[in-house]
């Protein structure tokens, strides 16, 4: 029977057709992605705050499989997974955003014991009866530009008050463009540099520039996989409330220190204003606009051990830190910043594995002080 196809031949043809269709669809998917340098927009698609509750802090993890959490660079996805993105701001809420480093994020602390959570547990209210609700937007890198980047994303959530916890280690210029979160969001950071005329290199070689291949489906496979993994980890986040792998034991913060008086590439005896990225701090304050900002010099551990006459702790030689405190005090007086120096607000034994990470008890001490500042800022 000439012309009649055999089952094998038919199957072969249908497979080839199928393969061609798959290839065509794959090619189209790549083309669709080409105009986009990143998948930030896709990050808005999130099961958080819908299928499962939003996270109490921004996604970050050193050990994803145990933390049910992961670090990724898609800011939209990071915010979409946060409880802050759960919907319209309630009318009876006084919204406070907490910006800062790993200490604010709550390194080695469960989500319900972080600074934001502990302030919330105090149940503060404004004079007009609004509930004070504090949101944890800390992120474990010490860098003012990283704080600025997060603040730039956070402003759309209509904060009533911003509390920005800083420490000297966030200020040096060499700390500004090194965080991977910055390097992987070059367009956003470049815009901030341009808009606020920051003294940072817009063409810094560390910025990850997406080439043509990086924009394809294959080139963005890791970023896509991270988006999917973030959603999948949401199930165990919802089921367990765990978002960090907290080891039972850890190496305590350093007590005995090196006899080293240098701070980054700076030498004693005087810390100058131009050595520090105050411009980024000021940019943040401008960005906040009418929203009040409380600036806080965050607590730190003060060593009593070897060479503690030279250094306060692993991070800071005494001359640099003392200089920083003086500069901050002078600048805030000059500019009218609402600044509070809480460098010694927490007992020395309440620091964990670094000179700025706090125990739950230490966090409670700081929460009490910040709670007072919030109520103080609300007026009578």
């Amino acid at each position, binding site marked *: 029977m000439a012309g009649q196809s055999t089952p094998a031949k038919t199957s072969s043809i249908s497979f080839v057709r199928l393969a061609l269709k798959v290839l065509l669809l794959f090619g189209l998917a790549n083309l669709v992605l080409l105009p986009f340098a990143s998948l930030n927009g896709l990050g808005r698609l999130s099961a958080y705050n819908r299928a499962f509750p939003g996270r109490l802090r921004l996604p970050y993890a050193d050990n994803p499989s145990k933390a049910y959490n992961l670090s990724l660079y898609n800011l939209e996805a990071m915010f979409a997974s946060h409880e802050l993105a759960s919907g319209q701001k309630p009318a009876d809420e006084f919204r406070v955003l907490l910006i800062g480093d790993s200490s604010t994020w709550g390194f080695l602390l469960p989500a319900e014991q972080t600074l934001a959570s502990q302030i919330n547990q105090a149940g503060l209210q404004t004079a007009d009866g609004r509930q004070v609700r504090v949101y944890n937007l800390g992120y474990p890198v010490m860098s003012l530009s990283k704080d600025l980047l997060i603040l730039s994303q956070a402003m759309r959530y209509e904060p009533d008050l911003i509390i920005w916890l800083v420490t000297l280690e966030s200020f040096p210029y060499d700390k500004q463009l090194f965080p991977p979160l910055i390097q992987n969001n070059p367009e956003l950071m470049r815009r901030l540099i341009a808009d606020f005329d920051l003294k940072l290199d817009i063409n810094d070689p560390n910025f990850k520039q997406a080439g043509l291949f990086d924009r394809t489906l294959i080139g963005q496979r890791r970023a896509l996989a991270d988006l999917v*993994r973030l959603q999948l980890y949401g199930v165990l986040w919802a089921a367990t409330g765990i978002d960090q792998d907290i080891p039972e034991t850890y190496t305590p913060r350093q007590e005995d220190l090196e006899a080293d008086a240098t701070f980054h590439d700076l030498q004693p005896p005087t810390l100058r204003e131009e050595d520090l990225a105050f411009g980024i701090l000021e940019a943040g304050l401008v960005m906040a606009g009418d929203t009040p900002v409380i600036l806080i010099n965050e607590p730190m551990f003060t060593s009593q051990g070897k060479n503690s006459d030279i250094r306060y702790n692993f991070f800071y030689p005494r001359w640099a830190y003392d200089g920083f405190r003086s500069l901050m005090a002078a600048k805030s007086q000059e500019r009218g910043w609402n600044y509070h120096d809480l460098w010694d607000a927490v007992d020395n034994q309440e620091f964990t594995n670094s000179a700025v990470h706090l125990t739950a008890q230490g966090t409670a001490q700081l929460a009490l002080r910040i709670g007072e500042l919030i109520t103080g800022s609300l007026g009578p």
Partner: protein
Amino acid sequence: MDLTVILVFIPAALLVGLIVPGRWKGTVLLVSSLAAIFWLQAALPLRNLDFWLPALSVGLTVLTWAATRPSQIPGDQAQARWRLELPAALLISGALIAIGMTRYNGSFCCLTATRPPAIWQILLGVGLWSGLIWLVSRLKSRAGWFSGSLIVILLALLVILKSPFLSLKASALLRGLTGQSIQLAAASDFAWLGFSYLAFRLIHALRDFQASKLPAYSLADFVNYAIFFPSWVAGPIDRSQRFIAESSSQKPILKTDRLEGLWRILSGVFKKFVLADGLALMALNSQNVVQIQSTGWAWLILYAYALRIFLDFSGYTDIAIGLGRLVGFHLPENFDRPYLKTNLTTFWNSWHITLAQWFRAYYFNPLTRSLRSRSKGKFALPAWAVILICQVTTMLLIGLWHGITINFAIWGLWHGVGLFIHNRWSEWVRPRSTNLENRPGLQRSLKFAGWLLTFNFVVLGWIWFALPSPTMAWDYVQLLLGL
């Protein structure tokens, strides 16, 4: 098998299928499989064990082949047949020695996970094993006794490997003998890749030989069957008669075979590395079991585990079947939409099919026949008791095949009792089901109820499979029930 291994296997299999002439295919596959089983074996803490375990797999296979040679052959003919096997024997020995020689390749060496042992040790091993096989060939008059002993040895090895306690003891013993620290002994020291499946293939050959159902195979064909690289890691457990008949037929590999093979591999890779690995991020495990706080999430995470284990295993099977197709073999299916079945019996006819068939052929059916034939007179066992004993012990053994632990035993018993209950239910329903023929709506409802019950019964069974301790599993059951 990780993605790198699969990406190497695909072109290798395609090349074998495309350029190797039919009469050479067996030889090339033999060499490929020999290389693959050494490559796939992960590094082990015991010195050189990552070489000796695959070598022992080959050795046991050759020994089984020798033990299953027909014995009723006149002297000269038998001698001639042995001579015919000499090239294959030399090829296998030569491959082992060549793999051992990679120890001299320095940083180029990559076939074994760690540096192979000294050549003299390998030569000694090959020599001693050849002597053993020669001895077996001389003792063919005691073939029954020898094949029986070999089954016992294979089962004993399986028990040692599957029992954490015995593995630990064996590791300590080996460490003592080789001068390594006994304190560092661990059950995981004996992660002998592929042995669970190899042992079942070899026992199948030995039992069929004892029942005079095993044809005479050439050495190359038999070793090819036993260590066939696509099915080395996760099965399926093929029957030698089917595999070797297909191998001997030397049918050309069609374009459709290649296309379908590639499609199965692609589908397997998607199932395993995208779906199953994705679900693993949220599926039940010994870490999250104590952290889950609510009943609803506990169910969801258990369902995720059920899907994950199916996609993982059936994904691997798809990859094995696909690779088999690329070199011209139609390996048997291991899964047939098991989670859509409406009762437990059909579930077990569609889940890990080749393992279930193996147990049916070599344990369940012989035991049933034996109990029925002995159950006469005043010691007669009622039919239901025979079914209970056979189903429960079969499933118990299937459970223990995964590991000799209390939880795997409970998992096996769970299914054994479930199968028995279903058997009794079917017997009860059968005479009453005639009334249902005119009521399609009720039939559909019963089918749905059957599916719902079967699926959830299987899912609940996975708790014992996924978790390492009975207490942990029982606590989880209580959480699921909201207790």
